[in-house]
């Protein structure tokens, strides 16, 4: 068991981390907004943690606070992400569909280029020697794991709350939702901010996890990867991002013995999953369940 964790601890924690990032895309999607801004906030959160962890200016803080500085980094990353998300979200969410996606891609690029040019972010090399919370990679499950459980619980409650229903109403028909007294702009911005804060906090947790932070963390490629997680996993269920993130992040590593052909197999899985499971994995599983309930009378009790 020890050996197994030594080998795969980093991978398992990565799966949790990627699932969380997929979730950060899921909240805006819940309100029908295709936002690809998550990698931007992820990168921002990582820089916040890396700068607090390494900059001269914060040295007295680090010395006096000890490990408490880590939760403070997460908090700082969350707050900064929320403020930036509000600033960006209010104008950007006036756009719809593909235009919003384009605007958020632009946002990620702008942030990347700024970080590439600033002195404090270390330019292209980035920031290295980020202080460690744990020695073993596996132990980082104690930061990402609880966050995942917390977010799952949050999603579960959100799904059944007034706010969650408002999100879904906007997703199904914004005009009708507006007519029923839901303020679409407010809820859209709220969904965007929730996703941004989550991505920011995950970023802040990831900087020590990856030992280093640089402008390559928040790129357009990452945006597409997160979107794939949600689409393959299923965008209509809180389990979708978890399933998609875990599966897609694990595949290239599980297929490692196949060497060069592993990326081909990886691509094939994506293609087949999107053809045969248009609702994502969570959607397909849901169909199987409703089928068994309807036809065979199993698992009754649920409507």
């Amino acid at each position, binding site marked *: *068991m*020890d*050996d197994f964790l*030594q*080998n*795969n*601890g*980093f*991978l398992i924690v*990565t799966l949790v981390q990627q699932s969380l990032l997929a979730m950060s895309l899921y909240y805006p999607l819940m309100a029908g907004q295709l936002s690809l801004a998550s990698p931007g906030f992820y990168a921002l959160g990582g820089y916040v943690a890396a700068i607090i962890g390494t900059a001269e200016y914060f040295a007295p803080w680090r010395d006096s606070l000890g490990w408490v500085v880590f939760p403070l980094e997460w908090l700082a990353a969350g707050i900064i992400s929320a403020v930036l998300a509000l600033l960006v979200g209010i104008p950007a969410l006036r756009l719809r569909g593909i235009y919003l996606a384009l605007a958020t891609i632009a946002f990620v690029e702008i942030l990347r*280029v700024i970080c*590439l*040019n600033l002195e404090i972010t270390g*330019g*292209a*090399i*980035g920031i*290295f*020697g980020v202080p*460690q919370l744990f*020695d073993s*990679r596996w132990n980082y499950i104690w930061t990402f794991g609880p966050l995942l459980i917390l977010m799952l619980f949050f999603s579960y409650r959100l799904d059944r709350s007034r706010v969650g229903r408002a999100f879904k109403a906007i997703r199904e028909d914004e005009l009708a939702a507006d007519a029923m007294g839901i303020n679409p702009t407010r809820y859209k911005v709220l969904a965007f901010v929730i996703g941004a804060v989550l991505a920011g906090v995950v970023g802040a947790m990831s900087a020590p996890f*990856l*030992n*280093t932070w*640089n402008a*390559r*963390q928040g790129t357009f490629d990452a945006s597409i990867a997160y979107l794939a997680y949600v689409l393959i996993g299923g965008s209509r269920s809180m389990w979708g991002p978890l399933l998609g993130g875990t599966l897609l992040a694990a595949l*290239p*590593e599980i297929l*490692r013995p196949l*060497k*060069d052909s592993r*990326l081909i197999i990886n691509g094939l899985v994506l293609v087949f999953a999107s053809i045969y499971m248009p609702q994502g994995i969570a959607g397909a599983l849901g169909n199987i369940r409703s089928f068994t309930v309807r036809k065979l009378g199993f698992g009754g009790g649920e409507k």
Partner: protein
Amino acid sequence: MRRSVLVTLLLTLCAGTASAENVATPIPIGIGVAQTSNVALLGEEEVVGAKIAEKYFNAHGGINGTPFKLVFQDTGGDEAGAINSFQNLINRDKVVGIVGPTLSQQAFSADPIANRAKVPVIGPSNTAKGVPQIGEYVGRVSAPVAIVAPNAVKQALKEHPGIKKVAVLYAQNDAFNTSESGTFQETVKKMGLQIATLQKFQTTDTDFTSQVTAVLGAHVDLAIVSGLSADGGNLVKQLRQLGYKGPIIGGNGLNTVNIFPVCGQYCDGILIAQAYSPSADPKNAINAAMADDYRAKYKKEPPQFTAQTFTAVQVFVEALKKVEAVTKKKITQQDLGKVREELNKQIRTGSYMTPLGKISLDQEGEIHQENFYVAKIKMDPNGKTGKYVYVK
């Protein structure tokens, strides 16, 4: 009954992890470089270098008669991939040491993992400041920019002793070029020359009229350009077209055949400093052997990364021999952890005669290289193709 079987199983499992194990035969050396993603362009050159080294040194007796084998684990282009690759090499493949990763950013991510596991790492292409300082188990055979770049300025002064005023131009939006240009500016000042004008541009620019006008107006004797192939090439072209006649030094961004189509005949004469030359020293037998093998397979001159990765493998092989000499025991009869520790010590002692010339690694793991080279671009009469001619 069943319970006792389980208990024994568990006990053996625990014992399995706790007991020390010996180094496998053939001795595994890990290669963790980028074999996929866009970084693979560089990584593939490294894979080739490693494979040539494996063949060469095993044909020459391996480690005092024991063969070694290279274990390849793809890092991909990102940081997480580099960590996964290193974890696999360290825990699953049980290598004695690792050559990799390709990028400096990946090194900052994965090297601390190896350092904590006490596994020696040699970076074949990590040129950023701070890489050997990651930890006591981290070293490199790739000389940093700050050491390579000044050689081009020295060469220019040798060819044109009258140089007094210098124009320095760099792509401001690219970190590598900004820091490289910083090195050039320091070198110029240290050599008692005057920076007559300092011009910035963007890697996305195509029109350099204002920069060129400033350079021509300053009546400089030397122009130093740090940019990438497209912008740097265009800048050189416009400098020449608008009448600049003096020598031009290019940074590492221009160290690629991709600039030939950009500046065409105007590329001719650009000086670029190199950490490796395939043909500078005909007496270097090991370089000749490596370069011949490469030429036979690929019909072209071996690139720098191939030579540096070959060198990294060579350092491991020779250091392993030294470990056997010190411990007076075969590597394969020794505990893996102890071999890794001793190997790391031996890497940092003595010097190595490699394709890069004579090198050694200091206590920190930084390379000390005796020879650097300068190449001059020589364009063919058709103005489309050309080559790098090494000057000495």
